[in-house]
């Protein structure tokens, strides 16, 4: 039997996922990281993006995080997300709208919109859209 570890994904407003997994892929601050059981202790901030969990038996689950912190202990991985929404719940239209909004604000740098904030919003929207498309492909294919 493959080695497994315990994975928790929580956001301030609810618990999203709790269970065992063989591998976790997460969008860390300096690029995506893959965590397997017995990984050394690690603490990293997360970028907006998807967390991919490989359950026992190879089944995969996707979650969207809009940033947060991940703690890795040899047999426990904890994702403290700012807000996590199940990927299938995401509304693509809303995400596109947000992206357009953010891009507009980027172009219009003289506006009172904060540049850094706009960039963060854009990154979030892009990550959400990528996530939705991936989920859709999985369902369709």
């Amino acid at each position, binding site marked *: 039997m493959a080695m497994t570890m315990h994975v*928790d994904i*929580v*956001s*301030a*407003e*609810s*618990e999203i996922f*709790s269970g065992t997994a063989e591998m976790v892929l997460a969008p*860390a*601050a*300096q690029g995506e*990281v893959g965590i397997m059981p017995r990984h*050394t*202790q*690690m*603490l*990293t*901030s997360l970028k907006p993006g998807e967390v991919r969990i490989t359950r026992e038996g190879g089944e995969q689950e996707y979650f969207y995080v809009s940033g*947060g*912190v991940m*703690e890795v*202990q040899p047999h426990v991985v*904890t994702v*403290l997300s*700012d807000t996590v929404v199940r990927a299938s719940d995401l509304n693509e239209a809303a995400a596109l709208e947000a992206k357009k909004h953010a891009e507009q604000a980027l172009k219009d740098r003289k506006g009172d919109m904060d540049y850094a904030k706009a960039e963060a919003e854009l990154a979030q929207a892009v990550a959400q859209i990528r996530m939705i498309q991936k989920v859709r492909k999985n369902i369709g294919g």
Partner: protein
Amino acid sequence: MASGKEIRTQIKSIKNTQKITRAMEMVAASKMRKAQDRMSASRPYAEKMHNVIHHLAYAHPEYRHHYLLPRENPKRVGYIIISSDRGLCGGLNNNMFKDALTDMRRWREQDIEIDLCTIGQKASQFFKRFGNISAQATQLGDNPGVVDLIGTVKVMLDAYDKGEIDRLFLVYNRFVNTMTQQPLVEQLLPVEPDGKEKELSYHWDYIYEPDAKEVLDGLLIRYIESLVYQGVVENIACEMAARMVAMKSASDNAGDLIDGLELVYNKARQAAITQELSEIVAGAAAV
């Protein structure tokens, strides 16, 4: 004795009040259930966060965040006080304010000044007289998000970063059960490691990405925010429970009052009938 009509109007007005209190009781009961759900939904996050902070205390990091370091001789302390927006919830807010004031007195006695941050209308009204409210948030509604609190918490954290305050406390009501709400004063900063240090045979530290300072900054700010958020959510559950109980006793009292008044009314009515009868009989006898 008041006349029949006067008593009737009085009974009617009390009945109207009773209807209102009864409706408020039911509204509070359903809101309380929702608030309790939210409370249990946000608990895992707070627990996980607590675990991580706890692990951090065991690690041997090369960088110690200043939230984790004790500060000697405080010159100024900060309080975050969470109250409800609305009244009619019994002694909930006042009991908590009393506890907060007792706690503040021990600083005042040492000539240490106090900065306040209030969440909720009642706290900002009450503590206006004590001065020095540096931040406040009101009208959060029944379902506040973490977003609503980030601003107010940041004001206090900034003050702590700059050394303007040396301690930060959180005052709120803890939800024990429907009948019991416990006012609490907790120390947020500096973070105190709870209990005994576990014996660790080897030294270890996390790998930090991108670097220790950045990660810990983000983590500790989230930690404080999650504690405050948990406090707010618990306080809402307390508010609803307290209001439900207060409104229930108000409805009961109104019922008692109505019973008493109805007795008086009936007596007056009977007396009037008896009087009339005796007048008629006396009149007939005279004829």
